[in-house]
């Protein structure tokens, strides 16, 4: 319902406006768009660029996930939180950082701008956290008894990894991959900044046609095309995921992460940390350094200048206010999307008629038998997978389509949200919800129904089962999902830029305002604001991660 009101309705409104300008359908635009060879080129580029980004991210992210799931090392918690920093950075800021590394005058001396490599590296930078945090949290929740059994029976570590661990992680890997894919599929700022004039994605075309030329018919045709592409890809992902049983966590009580014991393990940790330092650390370091180098020399001048409204400008926002606004919106978004996401996840991962009397324990898929839980049969299953796929679509839809759609569709009562404070948290929740659902559904599914049934048998009510069994078991995933929702809201710029009210400017908006003016001090102030944003997200994510119990040892 939420998505229907705040996503489907706006998008459909803008698409309809495009395709029936004078009250009747005009579908020639769609045909024209398909005939245009340059659009076809853009489409293919979008598809293979995002597939490549996804594969790369998963390949590189898996070792990172293993690192956090299995090893204990100094600074682990803070690093786990730091991973989300790239995720909230406004693209123009990250883009500038990358340009100073791999641009024409880059420090590294390697010029990659205008090539696919620059785009891939930047996508990796932004999406690494998605893979590591999604897969890592599932991996950490997974017991090692089967791996240990296999190892006892003589399997090599590699074989155990390939035949036991990875198949069981399949569902969370695919969840992460589908999110990365959608992000790369709708990549906008990065492609513009690093791709040069030649590389364009469908998203860029839609933006041009909507916000620049107001060719709503062409934009509508492109949006439909984008939507169809997203739906097809999501179905392929769903199919791949369903073709094996879902990975299940057995929440073993043994402490799962430990210190490195062998030299190989230490090398593994070292290599991972080196990689993160190189790919995530360098661009961030550039930003921090820039924020300290000002016209007055090295120091905190840019930070102190942030607080002074030298020209008494109406466009001035005190950085503390901007941070405060951003945090308020992010908290509202987090609450809204986690609440909605939980509802969606539980209805999607419905245990088979648990409380309706004739409950027959569904056998947990052990030994990788191809047994699917009963609930995923028949019409109910179709509806569920439909809804689940549907909940992902917002990620694959152009922000400008949603934003413009909101302007048209949400103008009249009962949905008059255009000038309401809630407009932004709602728009952000639409974007954050797919993350939350994608993270929670596999987690809820992996809960052993026996536990619920045992509790029910012992007299626990529906709510009490939920509260004492389900909630504690997936706390870790809820924390991860909440972290993502928070980060999505904190970093969102596209829709925010024209939905925000002047009185509650967010940090990314303030950054763009600084960057829009010439002068060295404006640049370092923008960088200083970015550093503040980075610090804010780190602190909040650390706090969110702390809120959950460190282990779920009670099981």
């Amino acid at each position, binding site marked *: 319902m939420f998505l229907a009101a705040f996503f*489907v309705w706006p998008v*459909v*409104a*803008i698409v309809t406006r495009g395709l*029936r300008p*004078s*009250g009747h359908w005009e579908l020639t635009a769609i045909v024209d768009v398909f005939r245009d060879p340059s659009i076809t080129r853009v489409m293919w580029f979008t598809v293979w660029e995002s597939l490549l980004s996804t594969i790369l991210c998963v390949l590189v992210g898996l070792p990172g996930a293993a690192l956090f799931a299995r090893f204990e090392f100094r600074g682990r918690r803070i690093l786990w939180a730091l991973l989300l920093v790239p995720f909230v950075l406004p693209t123009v800021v990250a*883009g*500038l950082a990358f340009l*100073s590394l791999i*641009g*024409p005058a880059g420090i590294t001396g390697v010029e990659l701008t205008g090539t696919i490599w620059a785009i891939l590296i930047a996508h990796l930078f932004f999406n690494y956290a998605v893979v590591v945090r999604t897969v890592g949290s599932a991996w950490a929740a997974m017991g090692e008894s089967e791996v240990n059994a296999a190892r006892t029976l003589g399997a090599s570590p590699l074989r155990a990894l390939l035949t036991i661990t990875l198949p069981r992680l399949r569902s969370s890997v695919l969840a992460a991959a589908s999110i990365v894919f959608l992000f790369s599929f709708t990549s906008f700022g990065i492609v*513009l*900044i690093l791709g*040069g*004039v*030649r590389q*364009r994605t469908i998203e*860029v075309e839609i933006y041009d046609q909507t*916000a*620049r030329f*107001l060719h709503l018919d062409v934009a509508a045709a492109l949006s439909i095309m984008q939507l169809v592409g997203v*739906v097809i890809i999501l*179905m392929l992902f*769903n199919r791949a995921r*369903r073709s094996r049983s879902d990975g299940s966590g057995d929440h073993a009580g043994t402490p799962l992460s430990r210190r490195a014991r062998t030299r190989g393990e230490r090398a593994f940790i070292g290599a991972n940390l080196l990689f993160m330092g190189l790919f995530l650390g360098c661009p961030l370091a550039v930003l921090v350094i820039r924020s300290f*180098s000002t*016209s007055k020399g090295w120091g905190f001048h840019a930070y102190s200048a942030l607080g002074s409204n030298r*020209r*008494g*400008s*109406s*466009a001035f926002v005190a950085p503390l206010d901007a941070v405060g606004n951003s945090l308020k919106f992010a908290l509202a978004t987090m609450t809204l999307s986690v609440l909605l996401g939980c509802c969606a996840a539980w209805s999607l991962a419905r245990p088979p008629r648990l409380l309706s009397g004739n409950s*027959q324990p569904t056998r947990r898929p052990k030994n990788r038998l191809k047994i699917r839980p*009963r609930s995923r049969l028949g019409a109910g*299953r*179709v*509806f569920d*997978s*439909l809804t689940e796929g*549907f909940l992902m679509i917002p990620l694959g839809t152009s922000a400008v389509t949603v934003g*413009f759609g909101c*302007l*048209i569709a949400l*103008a*009249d009562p009962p949905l008059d949200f*255009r000038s309401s404070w809630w407009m932004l948290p709602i728009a952000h929740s639409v974007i954050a919800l797919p993350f939350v659902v994608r993270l929670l559904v596999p987690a809820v599914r992996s809960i052993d129904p026996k536990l619920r049934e045992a509790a029910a048998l012992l007299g626990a009510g529906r709510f009490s089962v939920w509260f004492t069994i389900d909630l504690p078991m997936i706390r870790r995933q809820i924390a991860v999902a909440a972290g993502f929702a928070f980060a999505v809201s904190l970093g969102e710029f596209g829709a925010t*830029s*024209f939905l*925000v*009210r*002047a009185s509650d400017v967010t940090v990314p908006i303030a950054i763009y305002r600084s*960057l*829009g*003016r*010439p*002068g*060295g001090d*404006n*640049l370092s102030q923008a960088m200083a604001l970015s550093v503040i944003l980075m610090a804010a997200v780190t602190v909040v994510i650390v706090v969110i991660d702390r809120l959950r119990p460190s282990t779920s040892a009670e099981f």
Partner: protein
Amino acid sequence: MTSNNRTQSLGKDSFLRPWYRTAAAVVALLLFAVIATGCSGGPNGGSQSSMTQDSRSTPTIEPVLSDGALPRFPDGTVVRVVAHDSFAVSTAVLDEFTARTGVRVEILPSGDAGTMVNAAILTKDDPQGDLLFGIDENLLAKAFDEGLFQRYSASGLGSVPMSLQADDQHRVTPIDHGDVCVNFDRSWFADRNLPVPDDLQSFTDSKYRSTLAVEDPSSSTPGLSFLLATIATFGGGEDTGPNPAWLQYWRDLKANDVSVVDSWETAYYSSFSGSSGAGNRPLVVSYASSPPAEVLDTSVPADATPTGVVAPTCYRQIEFAGVLAGAKQPRAAATFIEFMLMQSFQQDMPEQMYVYPVVDETPLPEAFSKYTTPVAEPLTLPYELVAASRERWVAQWASIFR
């Protein structure tokens, strides 16, 4: 256990079937969504087209000034100004307006100028604000076609030069102007004993190879202005063929390794060697008002600023304000337009938005009067021509750069 057995027996062959069902269901859902809105959108769509007809007959607002004095409104009157996100004004100046008229100003930032105008067109039947500020010449024709504004002939226009008054029907009022110009990095050329290039043509000279960074005209407003500057200089704007004179100039630029980037931010902060971003290009498309921002010490003489402007490359950009059709407070909005043409607002703009006042003989702040020279003969093109040809020009440009 029967159902479990069924599950198993379905095992392999049902592998695909649910997927097909999913596909069918998704298609059905999409169709349903389209049909549903088709029905509900019907009457809506109808009324919109008739509204468009109505708004063609542009309403006119009567003069609001009496004996040159701003009128007073009941306390609590609010005028909502839809503005692009570079809009800024001193809070003291806004307070002065409120003190003189009783009207409070609420600013609605709406993205960049293009996004703002398109959003205003989409919401014109129920506008978000009363007044729109920051529409430039290139966007006027579309806004007029859509009947976006009401007429208001401001009394303050008397002291605005005719060259800045693009609309003789007074649907919009000029408020400020700026010029998009190529900026140069003085020390880069001095270090190499090269003269600073003095016009567009010299950028194609081989001794200035790999020196110029410009913005993509399809994604950037200054980029578009620079494209228009080349068309105004070299001509051939009416030529729909593959070889208009201006396009040949761009081929020469490309052969001389011009760098095209997405936005002003990237060009100025990453490509340009004269900014603190320290890029490797000493020439960049920016604004006539950019050099003062690079001056750190106001004792620097005007001919020794770190960056300067290549004056013959300057293309004029005028920003207008207009009362939106359907405004809830049209008279208060018109009053704010009058106020924007008065001294306190006009004097405030340069340092707030890096633009020049339109009203004759408005004193400029020191940094401006010392470090910028008014562009005597900026390049211009008639806005009707730009509106009619802009997309073709960008497409012609793209044919050699994509």
